[in-house]
């Protein structure tokens, strides 16, 4: 049985209380780090563990933290990305539902390593119940001296504040998140400067996904080489894989990095319903390129999925069987990106809305010759030509779909 450091102690009955979390060994890693390790030692351990960001871009967390300019007088901020808007992804909700203290312990470790005294958790507005649960866990932790003026008696201070979004996928993009947190429209900022230099309120800022941070207690508890050993070189640990769509057992699975996508679908998620056949798999959330049934013998890690022409993204696996029409898939995908574009740059605003218009008129039986080529041209014109990665996130899945399933879409 593979190790599941993140989820093996989750209680199916609901969120673990502070008391239950501590009873299960919780906050021991943070306590030891704060008492016995320097911030640089904590950061070094995380860097050696090759913990890649679980939010979508897959950037190594330890490297990201090292970009905070040590000469800056601060304050530094941590923004926890709990926006989880990528369709097909529900792993962060899983963590928040079962173990909010695991996230809080991860936040403490990151904050200590980077020198942050205020962390904001940006949580999507629709997660009202998870947000309330988080507030409760934070109050519990503050009441017990786990957070606040002297975290676990160490003299290190940390406040954690929950900040709710209000319904906008783009606010998951890190610089849009910063804009939104500051009380503006969620429009991405031009980079550079990167948030590590000029972030929240103009100060150096680390932005990490919920799951990324939730892995930290195990990294510190068991060490970098153990964590690295769970996964692949340059891509350590386990990963929460969300599986949805046409499978018998949809859900969140904690799997070693590098688990074959085929096993995710057919072993862990139980395969398809009897009599159904596999048509396609979207491996890394809606923004990743769809794979055909002959393309799923690929290990789920950043490098392998990139080599297969897709990406691991948020590890949101959406399974599509022969009963689902690819026209429906194109309809849902094109609607999503047209609706969620922030409209700030022309290729994305115009591209997503034109693609949407073409898909709609085809749906209404008013398709014209060359429509699919038009879609390919519009998507191609977006790719690599937009202010933020949303343009690629919209173009890539549409291009893959139209290229690989052209015959069905032509009908």
């Amino acid at each position: 049985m593979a190790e599941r450091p993140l989820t093996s102690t989750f209680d199916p009955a609901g969120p673990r209380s502070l008391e239950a979390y501590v009873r299960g060994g919780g906050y021991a890693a943070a306590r030891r780090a704060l008492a016995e390790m320097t911030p640089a030692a904590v950061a070094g351990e995380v860097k050696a563990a090759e913990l890649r960001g679980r939010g979508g871009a897959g950037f190594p967390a330890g490297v990201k933290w090292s970009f905070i300019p040590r000469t800056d007088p601060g304050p530094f901020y941590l923004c926890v990305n709990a926006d989880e808007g990528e369709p097909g992804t529900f792993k962060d909700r899983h963590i928040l539902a079962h173990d909010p203290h695991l996230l809080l312990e991860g936040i403490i470790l990151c904050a200590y390593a980077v020198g942050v005294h205020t962390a904001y958790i940006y949580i999507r507005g629709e997660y009202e119940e998870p947000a309330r649960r988080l507030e409760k866990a934070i109050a519990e932790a503050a009441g017990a001296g786990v957070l606040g003026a002297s975290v676990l008696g160490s003299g290190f201070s940390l406040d954690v504040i929950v900040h709710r979004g209000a319904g906008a996928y783009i606010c998951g993009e890190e610089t849009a998140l910063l804009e939104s947190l500051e009380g503006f429209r969620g429009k991405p900022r031009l980079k550079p400067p990167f948030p590590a230099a000029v972030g929240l309120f103009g100060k150096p800022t680390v932005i990490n996904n919920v799951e990324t941070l939730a892995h930290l207690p195990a990294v510190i508890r068991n060490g970098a080489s153990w964590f690295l050993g769970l996964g692949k070189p340059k891509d350590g640990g386990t990963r929460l894989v969300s599986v949805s769509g046409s499978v018998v057992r949809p859900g969140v699975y904690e799997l070693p990095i590098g688990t074959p996508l085929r096993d995710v679908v057919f072993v862990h998620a139980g395969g398809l319903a009897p009599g159904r056949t596999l048509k396609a798999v979207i491996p890394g959330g809606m923004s990743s390129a769809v794979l055909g049934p002959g393309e799923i013998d690929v290990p789920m890690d950043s490098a392998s999925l990139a080599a297969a022409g897709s990406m691991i993204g948020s590890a949101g696996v959406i399974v599509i069987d022969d009963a689902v029409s690819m026209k429906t898939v194109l309809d849902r995908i094109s609607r999503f990106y047209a609706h969620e574009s922030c409209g700030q740059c022309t290729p994305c605003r115009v591209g997503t809305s034109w693609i949407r218009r073409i898909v709609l008129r085809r749906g209404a039986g008013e398709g014209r010759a060359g429509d699919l080529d038009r879609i390919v041209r519009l998507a191609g014109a977006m790719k690599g030509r937009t202010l933020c990665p949303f343009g690629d996130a919209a173009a890539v899945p549409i291009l893959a779909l139209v290229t690989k399933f052209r015959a069905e879409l032509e009908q």
Partner: protein
Amino acid sequence: MTNAFPSGLRTRIEAILARYPNRRAALLPVLHLVQRERGFIGPEDEAEAAVLCGLRPVEVREVLTFYTMFRREPAGRHLLRVCTNLSCSIRGSAGILDHLRRAFGLQPGRTTPDGRFTLVEVECLGACDKGPCLLAGDTLHENLTPAALDAILRELE
């Protein structure tokens, strides 16, 4: 300063303002709070939020209209948000919308004449494994079937 907000609300807003280094950052939480209290955010609320966050009313309007969860008009007593994104659609969200239309006369984007329900279609709610799903107010309902829907809606007066 205007005095449109009751004092209880103002106290809670002061507590929110204290969490940020500037007043503007409190805008989203303040708008959430006002909407929870009032059901929507009207022109006077906008003006009041502007004063509290140190902004011009037009700046509040700009932000408000960017985010889909904020409402500038009253909704029905119960806001039903049905996910129709890909995973839910694979698992039957079209049938759910169909049932809402036929059994309850509900149309996406509309409020029933008796003011009981407002229905909106939303993008992925992060519960794709248990689709089709719906947020009724703050409560998430998963694995919906027409029968389950009937039971849920019956409870909502």
